[in-house]
């Protein structure tokens, strides 16, 4: 194969190892927030208010500026507030102004229902997403990770026992912030997979020749092996960090493990060896592929698993164990981003402190104190008194507005 990588545009950001600090957040029609323009200071900001007032939405908006897509797989059109004026096309705008070592950085996400576009497959209006960096349009692969963020939220525990696709999505969103070549590969792999699956269906129906398949095998293997190699390396790093953090968090003796569970046995030794194994896996699944008209082996079927003391957490863990494992994972993700890019991510803690006892809360807040910027929501402000948050800026959120 020729070096396809040479087609990738230069995407590595200029070396910058300092923090990327949120200085101002502006929202229009974002969930329950009609309009908001809020300055932020470096360090810790506590957003408090009763539930369903919009605190979570603020954190979700900041995360969207890091990852260019919603933390949840649900339809992104739900991000758009529906209380827009009659006759106006529903849209939402999220704008963050950041300080990147003295250089201003403006990130914008604009979502709009297509005015007279065709309906998408599910019959709903299509959503147009526009991303801008300092006013210039960017593709997602050239936008993600301009600023990095790790979001802690109560639903994190679902990662332990939820679907493989939700874990895969979470891992890809996290790693992509710190690894743009991986994001390019993931997007490319998805297009290859779509083409190859169409071909498999055509073969099943006798509308294509088997001579077409080896070409798509070659392209799929090359792209997939790079993704698997990147995921294996990242998970090894996350596994080591999470185990250490979990031990500190629990003072326990049982080791937490994050184990890569690829769709076929992956050998050591990098992408070239993985490619050989991938080709064998395609050969082994060829008959079933033709039957189902879909690619069976490959990184689109990858998963990872949580183990504690050699036992599956999904099967046997308690809710409290799930919580501590995911807090360790999130802290490990922040370490991974810092190691890989030199820049510490913004920490977004959504109502997570109330899920932890005093000791664990103290440990997490020490980590928060070490990070250049953190946004923390709580419904219970008094519970944070006497903690490391005493010097934090405090904002009250009521009905989608700041008081």
């Amino acid at each position, binding site marked *: *194969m*020729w*070096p*396809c990588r*040479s*087609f*990738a*545009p230069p995407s590595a950001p200029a070396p910058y190892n300092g923090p990327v600090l949120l200085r101002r957040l502006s929202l229009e029609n974002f969930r329950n927030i009609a309009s908001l323009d809020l300055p932020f200071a470096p360090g810790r900001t506590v957003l408090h208010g009763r539930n369903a007032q919009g605190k979570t939405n603020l954190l979700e908006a900041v995360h969207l500026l890091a990852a260019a897509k919603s933390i949840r797989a649900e339809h992104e059109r739900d991000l758009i507030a529906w209380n827009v004026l009659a006759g106006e096309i529903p849209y939402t705008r999220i704008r963050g102004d950041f300080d990147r070592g003295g250089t201003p950085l403006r990130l914008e996400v604009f979502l709009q229902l297509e005015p007279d576009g065709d309906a998408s497959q599910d019959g709903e209006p299509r959503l147009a997403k526009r991303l801008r960096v300092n006013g210039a349009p960017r593709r997602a692969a050239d936008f993600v990770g301009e600023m990095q963020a790790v979001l802690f939220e109560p639903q994190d525990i679902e990662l332990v026992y939820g679907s493989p696709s939700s874990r895969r999505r979470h891992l890809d969103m996290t790693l992509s912030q710190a690894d743009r070549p991986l994001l*390019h590969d993931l997007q*490319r792999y998805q*297009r*290859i997979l*779509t*083409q*190859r699956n*169409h*071909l498999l269906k*055509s073969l099943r129906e006798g*509308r*294509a*020749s088997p*001579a*077409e398949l*080896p*070409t*798509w095998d*070659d*392209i799929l293997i090359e792209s997939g092996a790079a993704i698997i190699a990147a995921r294996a390396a990242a998970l090894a790093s996350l596994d080591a960090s999470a185990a250490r953090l979990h031990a500190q968090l629990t003072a326990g003796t049982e080791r937490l493990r994050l184990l890569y569970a690829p769709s076929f046995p992956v050998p050591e030794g990098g992408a070239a060896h993985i490619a050989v194994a991938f080709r064998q896996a395609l050969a082994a699944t060829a008959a079933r592929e033709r039957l189902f008209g879909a690619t069976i082996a490959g990184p689109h079927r990858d998963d990872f698993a949580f183990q504690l003391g050699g036992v599956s957490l999904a099967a046997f863990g308690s809710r409290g164990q799930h919580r501590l494992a995911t807090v360790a994972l999130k802290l490990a993700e922040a370490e991974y981003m810092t190691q890989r890019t030199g820049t510490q991510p913004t920490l977004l803690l959504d109502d997570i402190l109330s899920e932890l006892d005093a000791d664990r809360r103290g440990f997490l807040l020490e980590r928060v104190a070490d990070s250049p910027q953190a946004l923390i929501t709580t419904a219970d402000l008094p519970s944070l008194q006497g903690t490391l948050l005493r010097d934090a800026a405090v904002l009250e959120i009521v009905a989608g507005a700041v008081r």
Partner: protein
Amino acid sequence: MDHQHAAAPLARLIDELHRLPGVGPKTAQRLAYHLVRAPKEEVQSLAEALSAMKEQVFFCSQCHNLTDVEPCAICGDGQRDRSTVCVVEQALDILALERTRRYKGLYHVLHGAISPMNGVGPGDLTIAALEGRLRTGAVKELILATNPNLEGEATATYIQRQVRGLPVAVTRLARGLPSGADLEYADEVTLARAIEGRQVMS
């Protein structure tokens, strides 16, 4: 697009224009209403140009480029290097490459790229004819100048696999072409560099 209130011949014209690539419903309407207001001679001239094009333009039997002479001007040019063939997806790509004035060989137009999604397989392209040209033994170098997107790469990979074993060196345009770009829109400097920096496919 709702144009049921337009006069029937006008509605038909809007439908015809809307079928053209890159012409949306709004543009189709705008063009149609422009033609309604245009002088009769102008519209006549356009209609004649369309039918003359359809009657007189055909595919060159050698390279499958669009031509009004057989063989086409490039295949018929005795000055060109007949040992090199550059494979492109569209006839328009030849215009882009010719503008660079760097390339003196011949071409082969595939008229598309492999895309199972869109139901385009190798049999829908002129790949068999290309293999026929290579079997004559006159071609020593094959330059694959398909677009640097997934379908272009798949097409290049497929051709490379097909011509394995034939005594022809296969190279691929590489450096400088932005990912996802179309050859048709690449600027001359970029394209000239890409021709010079083509790489051997192992």
